[in-house]
């Protein structure tokens, strides 16, 4: 992912890992869930035209909403430094990017599975098992839903957290160890 086409991914990566974080343009930063929701509503107004298929647009909005809202759900009151998420899209390249500077998936999963010791295992659990980092609340379906929609609709998701990533596409799920550490999360969706 080195060419210009992936600029929004690299901008998100840069923001997710740099210390201190770069100040983001307000157009691509959502300091609160309400602002994220408003930008999602805006995207829903323009996506059906781009995709020429409103059902695909609805599914994509549901996936983006789950990933973005997850950042708020799991980091509320516990952000590492900046409250909020990076949310950017490039309709010409058919890419969406989201990132947060939160606790990351391993820290969340460890609350309910203390024996899980690495990022790759935590990502696998998050995307394949009905489990919630906010036990005892009845929840934990969101990322399984994301995985299902991505696989069934020929989208592609690469989701990074810690020193691991998960790639999801029509062929299934693949976990990979990464060299660079992303303390929170970073997601790139190709549609």
């Amino acid at each position, binding site marked *: 992912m080195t060419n210009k086409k992936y600029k929004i991914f690299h901008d998100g990566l840069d923001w997710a890992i740099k210390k201190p974080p770069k100040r983001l343009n307000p157009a691509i930063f959502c300091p609160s*869930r309400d602002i994220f*929701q408003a930008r*999602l*509503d805006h995207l*829903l107004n323009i996506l059906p035209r781009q995709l020429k298929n409103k*059902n695909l647009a*609805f*599914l994509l*909005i*549901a996936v983006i*909403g*789950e990933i973005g*809202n*997850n950042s*708020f*759900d799991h980091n509320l009151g516990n952000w590492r430094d900046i409250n909020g998420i990076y949310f950017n899209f490039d309709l010409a390249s058919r890419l969406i990017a989201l990132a947060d500077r939160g606790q990351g998936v391993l820290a969340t999963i460890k609350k309910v599975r203390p024996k899980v010791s690495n990022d790759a295992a935590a990502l696998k659990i998050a995307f394949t098992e*009905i489990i919630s980092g906010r036990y005892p609340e*009845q*929840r934990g*379906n*969101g990322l*399984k*839903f994301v995985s*299902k*929609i991505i696989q069934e609709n020929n989208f592609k998701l690469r989701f990074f957290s810690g020193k691991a990533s998960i790639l999801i596409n029509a062929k299934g799920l693949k976990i990979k160890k990464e060299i660079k550490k992303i303390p929170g999360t970073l997601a790139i969706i190709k549609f």
Partner: protein
Amino acid sequence: MKLELKKFGKILNSRPAGREAWLAAKAYLLPLKNNKEKIEVDFSGVLVLSPSWADEFLTPLKKNYSQQVVFLAADNPTVKATLEIIARQYHPS
């Protein structure tokens, strides 16, 4: 009674919104516990439904009113996918 979800919004996708909707429905819309009236959940007009919202609204609705709740058929793909995912919670295999 018919519970029209579009009255809570066309995009139903966050936990706080789902929780707020559940509290409002409990206070103003849903029948009292001893009333065994059927509750038909109507998804028409909803553009996006996700499991986060559904976990906060449909899961407690099912838990509190179990056999009275009927999900009406829906065409929207996000509604279908969400109901499929949360159904595993009600009937784990």
